[in-house]
């Protein structure tokens, strides 16, 4: 067994979080091989997909309640002027960091369940396989490409969820391969635990105390290495059995890769990795009694997940994360202005139904518009928080982008045209900032080509131009590029 002390010089210990008495761990120390230590300028990507579309006109029946009033520069003043009618105006404080893009569509027409097929295309741009709620992607999602190119080998994207999982269409956003959806974690407490790696209680640290001399942490790392080697060896001997099917071999490979993923994640985690500012109490509360599963908690859980993504990026635990908010038939019942509303999916249809037929919901358009405003408040919260995070190379939003969109463009028609797209952050100066642009009626594969290029992904050294599979018009969206 080779000593591997040099690979894991970091310290890890428990401490009480302020006066709350909650023992949440954090990390410090910069591993020798982290991207920051090696002088790189890592870029980070976050994709948020919400449910059931927004209230927008675009030649349909609804009034315009989403898009800014005019193309061109976005300023705090111009967005504030729009804010009463247009929900994007709520983001006015962050105007200088925003890139709002219209004229982007899902490239494949819906042939069945628009919600499932929209979710499938949101990050894959691939033609959905199947027509029903079980539709799945025929290609990988953009976060998979980013993870493969930019993360240390085997490190997966961070795949998150908030809101209800009704069982009909659950997570359907991130695909590791055609047909293989990634499980999305809906409990922020679990995300936190995995992110920082809880040290076992008997290793000489205790809550409230510091501990963890370098020796203890090194011994832990060596022990884990030893166990990992054992498990990998067992998996290997099973994998080579001749009677295994391809599916079985893949299953064991996935387990094998998962071990390597963990080892590589730990290796790469970086300097600015403190949980100061993280709302630890809220994270604990959301875990208590599985509160994160309760109806009406979607926005609160989203906010916590968004904070944790910032922590993950600041710690260089991964370069890419996704968050799906609500499932395909989002049954969230929001309480707005003291009124308990019907299920969001019904409101988005304007009728008491998950289908196309039912009794009308009075004032459904306004209710949907109010829900959009609530979701913009959540996005604003995220941007306020992210402004507090930095990497060794400067503010997080200078080194990252966050994209907000929905799995259909609007409710009653399930249209895939003119998807609401809000991008925050310049990804190292690549993306325009403070602008509202028109992409020109293109497929979202071109959006993803542009974003992949922004974070430094390439196609064999050339700009990424062909995401989403063959048959799609490739290239970048010039209107987005600074």
């Amino acid at each position, binding site marked *: 067994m080779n000593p591997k002390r040099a690979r894991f010089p970091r310290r890890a210990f428990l401490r009480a979080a302020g006066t709350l008495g909650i023992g949440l761990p954090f990390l410090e120390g910069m591993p020798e091989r982290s991207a920051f230590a090696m002088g790189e300028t890592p870029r980070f990507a976050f994709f948020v997909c919400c449910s059931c579309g927004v209230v927008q006109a675009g030649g349909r029946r609804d009034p315009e309640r989403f898009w800014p009033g005019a193309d061109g520069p976005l300023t705090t003043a111009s967005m504030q002027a729009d804010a009463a009618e247009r929900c994007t105006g709520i983001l006015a404080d962050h105007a200088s960091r925003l890139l709002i893009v219209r004229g982007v569509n899902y490239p494949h027409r819906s042939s069945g369940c628009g919600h499932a097929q929209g979710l499938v295309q949101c990050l894959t741009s691939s033609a959905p396989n199947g027509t*029903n709620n079980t539709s799945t992607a025929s290609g990988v999602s953009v976060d998979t490409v980013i993870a493969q190119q930019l993360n240390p080998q085997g490190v*997966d994207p961070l795949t998150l969820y908030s809101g209800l999982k009704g069982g009909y269409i659950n997570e359907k956003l991130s695909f590791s391969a055609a047909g293989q959806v990634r499980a999305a974690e809906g409990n922020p407490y679990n995300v936190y635990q995995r992110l920082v790696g809880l040290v*076992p*209680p008997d290793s000489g640290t205790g809550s409230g105390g510091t501990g963890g001399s370098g020796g203890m942490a090194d011994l832990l790392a060596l022990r884990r290495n030893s166990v990992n080697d*054992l*498990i990998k060896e067992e998996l290997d001997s*099973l994998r080579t059995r001749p009677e295994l099917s391809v599916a079985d071999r893949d299953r064991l490979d996935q387990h094998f890769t998962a071990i390597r993923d963990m080892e590589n994640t730990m290796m790469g985690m970086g300097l600015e990795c403190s949980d100061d500012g993280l709302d630890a109490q809220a994270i604990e509360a959301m875990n208590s009694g599985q509160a994160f599963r309760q109806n009406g908690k979607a926005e609160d859980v989203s906010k916590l997940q968004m904070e944790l993504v910032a922590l993950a990026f600041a710690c260089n635990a991964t370069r890419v994360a996704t968050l799906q908010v609500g499932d395909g038939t989002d049954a969230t019942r929001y309480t707005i202005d003291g009124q308990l509303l019907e299920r969001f999916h019904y409101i988005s249809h304007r009728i008491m139904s998950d289908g196309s037929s039912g*009794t009308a919901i009075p004032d459904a358009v306004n209710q949907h518009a109010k829900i959009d405003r609530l979701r913009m408040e959540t996005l604003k919260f995220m941007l306020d928080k992210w402004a507090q995070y930095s990497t060794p190379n400067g503010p997080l939003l200078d080194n990252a982008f966050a994209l907000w969109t929905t799995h259909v463009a609007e409710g009653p*028609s*399930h249209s895939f045209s003119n998807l609401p797209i809000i991008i925050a952050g310049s990804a190292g100066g690549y993306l325009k900032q403070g602008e509202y642009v028109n992409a020109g009626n293109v497929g979202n594969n071109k959006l993803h080509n542009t974003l992949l290029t922004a974070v430094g992904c390439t196609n064999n050294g050339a700009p990424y131009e062909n995401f989403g599979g063959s048959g799609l018009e490739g290239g970048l969206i010039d209107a987005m590029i600074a």
Partner: protein
Amino acid sequence: MTHPDRSGSLHALRLIAPLSLALACTAKIDAGGPAPDSPGSGATTASVGGSGAVGQGGSTAGGGAGGSGATASGGTGAGTTGGTGGTGLTGSGGTGLTGSGGAASSGIPLQGTPAYHRFVRLTHEQWEASVRDLLELPALPGLSPSFSPDPPNGTFSNNERSLYVSSDLRTDYQRAAETLAAQVAGDAAALARVTDGVNDAATFIRTFGRRVFRRPLTPAEEQKYQAVFDSGTTFYASGNAFTDGVEMLIESMLQSANFLYRMELGTDGAPLGGYEMASKLSFFLRDTTPDDALLDAAASGELDTASGVLARATTMLDGPTGQAVLGRYHAELFGLRRYDQIDKNRTAFPSYSQTLNAEFQQADQMFFDRIFASGQGLRTILTSPLAFVSSATASYYGVTQSGTALTEVTLGPERPGYLTRVGFLALNATLSDPDPIHRGVDIVNRLMCADLMPPPEEIPPLPAIMAGQTNRQRVEAFTGVGTCGEGCHAGIINPLGFAFENFDAVGKLRTIDNNQPIDTTGLVETATGMQPFTGAPELTAILAAEPSVHGCYVKHITEYTLARDVATGDRTLVDGLEGFSMNDNASVKAMVLAIIGQPSFLTRVGGAP
């Protein structure tokens, strides 16, 4: 904007067309099965003249002179087989799973895509119970609720396709193993329980290893894990080498693939090995790792015959965990967890609060458990007047009940079966009104296995609401004859939902709606044509006698028992079970045993085409 065909044809709805398919007189499941046993008594042996995968004798699952049992022929009697002249899965004459003269099967579609995996990861519940039992903990450790969730893949959570190890889950397993190992090592009493007071490393490794891996360790494994044990003193250095070794061993073995996966390593088509069968039975029927007694039974060869397997399965099904396992089947089949999302307009329903949702769920769980425990089947699920009611829900049922505990009551004829319990009714309702569309869709999806295409995308302009309309009239205005939705709604979905229109949004009986009488009449398509009904009692009686409804139910129970999708290779089994359920009113228990007695369960890739 396109509309569905207005002709009323059911182009968008693929219902199961009734088939006039006569069963073969002596349909055999496995011509190459073990030879019949000699007549005798005891579980799962059938009567004289029997043949098939299991032999002869009486059965605890049923009974009756001349035999029963999971497979059999001959004899009278009820239970899993019965009927004069032999029945059971194979045989001629009589009823039971197959037999000449049996009713034509509905030909329920079997379009699943099983992978027949050799490595099926433990579910989170199985992991939790297994570590409790392996480490002899006083209670479930409560670590698995924080494990990465398994995205649904198939109807049931135990489907082989959804059970693999992702990156997040790998991290979760590591953390949990470290926590548990430290917990045991740090507590002298816990340590003594796990080691059985043994102080010798080699003995401990062998004993504990057999329990964790659910089979004896090979000599090479014993050697390897001895080295792991010995390394404990380096990594923990507590001063007690034995304790350190135990901790290291627990931490390592709980992360091993040999613990995390149930494995089938034999040749395709061959019976599963004894230890493999012990795991399969234990995880299915007890949701936990096989105990020492079951492993010993495997070692002795008891699980190498179908009769041995059936005997064990019968005992397990009769045990406390058997009911819980089948309880989960019904909870997942009928989506009881969705009751979490129920909410009601508090002005219209001032007595409702969301705390009732858990009670609705528990009441329905008790309903299904009661049916299982009393040896009943699908017909009872659909028609029984049994309910579990507390003082909180009594007013919804129109009964009086003191006490907060859910108590078994017998309701009147207007409340047949699960579909008239408040959970189902309140779930499929809006904040204020019943929702006949979703009541109908739930029945079509979950009870009839009908393949409803998604509704058309565009929501058409809505007709104006007219004053004085009942709920049914409003729904029909948008979906009935002459509208875009006619094809799916008028013919198939709505009528089923309208049968329950006399139950309001919390499931309480009502006789008027908006000052008008309530219309619960409708037509339902059956194997023998369109049948009229008025209200839930007539509709549920029709459903309870409908082959495709039984076919759908048995297809699901086959899926659950085999922990995989069912496909064309399972046709004979599913058709046989359908007849068994239809004609013999087979109990849930008997159906499960019938499946366990088949090559589909007993062999590697059993049931593959």
